[in-house]
């Protein structure tokens, strides 16, 4: 029988440095998982909006009056923007080998993160202000 290994393993994610590319990669995963969860609500919203003109108008009304629904929809859009942008960055890197050294990779990651942040701010202004 295999003996249980009681030796400690050091792994404190908050104390270990990761380059911006690594942080983006983790956020890419997190946004992907969040999108998967929110997708159920998005499909419900799509179904509702397509069922009749009246329901479509009701949904718009709900989006304006129900803050929680508005927040969920906002997070859904932010998630899509982030996940798509970082996904495209990964595809470009995989197919064309762009950003395979630390310097250019970090630079490209910063650009995509800043774009995502700007789009998120614009969406926030559009939705809530």
């Amino acid at each position, binding site marked *: 029988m295999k003996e249980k290994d009681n030796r400690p393993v050091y792994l404190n994610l908050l104390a270990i440095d990761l380059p911006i590319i*690594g942080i983006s990669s983790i956020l890419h995963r997190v946004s992907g998982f969040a999108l998967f969860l929110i997708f159920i609500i998005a499909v419900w919203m799509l179904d509702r909006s397509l069922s009749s003109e009246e329901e479509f108008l009701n949904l718009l009304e709900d989006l304006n009056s129900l803050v929680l629904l508005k927040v969920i929809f906002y997070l859904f859009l932010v998630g899509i923007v982030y996940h798509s942008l970082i996904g495209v960055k990964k595809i470009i890197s995989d197919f064309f080998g762009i950003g395979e050294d630390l310097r250019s990779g970090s630079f490209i990651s910063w650009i995509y993160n800043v774009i995502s942040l700007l789009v998120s701010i614009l969406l926030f202004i559009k939705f809530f202000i």
Partner: protein
Amino acid sequence: MNSTIPTEELRSITLSVYRFDPGKDKKAYMQDIEIEVPVNKDLMVLDALVLAKKQETSLSFRRSCGEGVCGSDGMNINGKNGLACVTPLSEAIKGEKLVVKPMPGLPVVRDLIVDMKQFFDQLEKVKPYLITKDEAPEQERKQSPEEREKLDGLYECILCGCCSTACPSFWWNPDKFLGPAALLQSWRFIADSRDQATEERLDDLDDAFSLYRCHGIMNCVSVCPKGLNPTEAISNIRKKLINRKK
């Protein structure tokens, strides 16, 4: 004639070290050790550890050459993996505190010493040696300068483990994902014009985990004390794998 021995100006810094003694401790803990270091002279992190060991004689860490060649003293220094012997204290220290922990993701044997078995098991899988099928020539197997140049940035790896233990994909699947160090070695032999086992090497890597778990996080590149680029090597293998399927 009067001769004066110059006295060094010293400052005190705190070395916060990860401690674990399997004979005594149930859990690992951090211990703060105050050491005196010269003000006008830079030390390496290894020197600071040696100073700390003078006070805490039970403090354990691996070291050998002391000049970044043997790869024994890989550890996590203020959050970043590196070799203690070639990491200047001035670069590593934040404020007056230096936090030193073992390399992440591997079982701790004692203090800063980790069990590297998992790391070397993965290295073994890539067969890090030349495989030839032809009969051995009377003299050496020749290589043109251009062919030899392709091995630059690959053969220099000293197997310190800093890259693999800084890789999140290796943390989650240390038994299935080979890790940046082993994959760099794999590419080192695939790229070698004298090696005759490219197809077999690629076959061994062609599954969901061995290579494809690399998500291009590039922490391996960020921490490599020899300035190597395992991400690029992994990408080269990936391209070879994809192209042979066409």
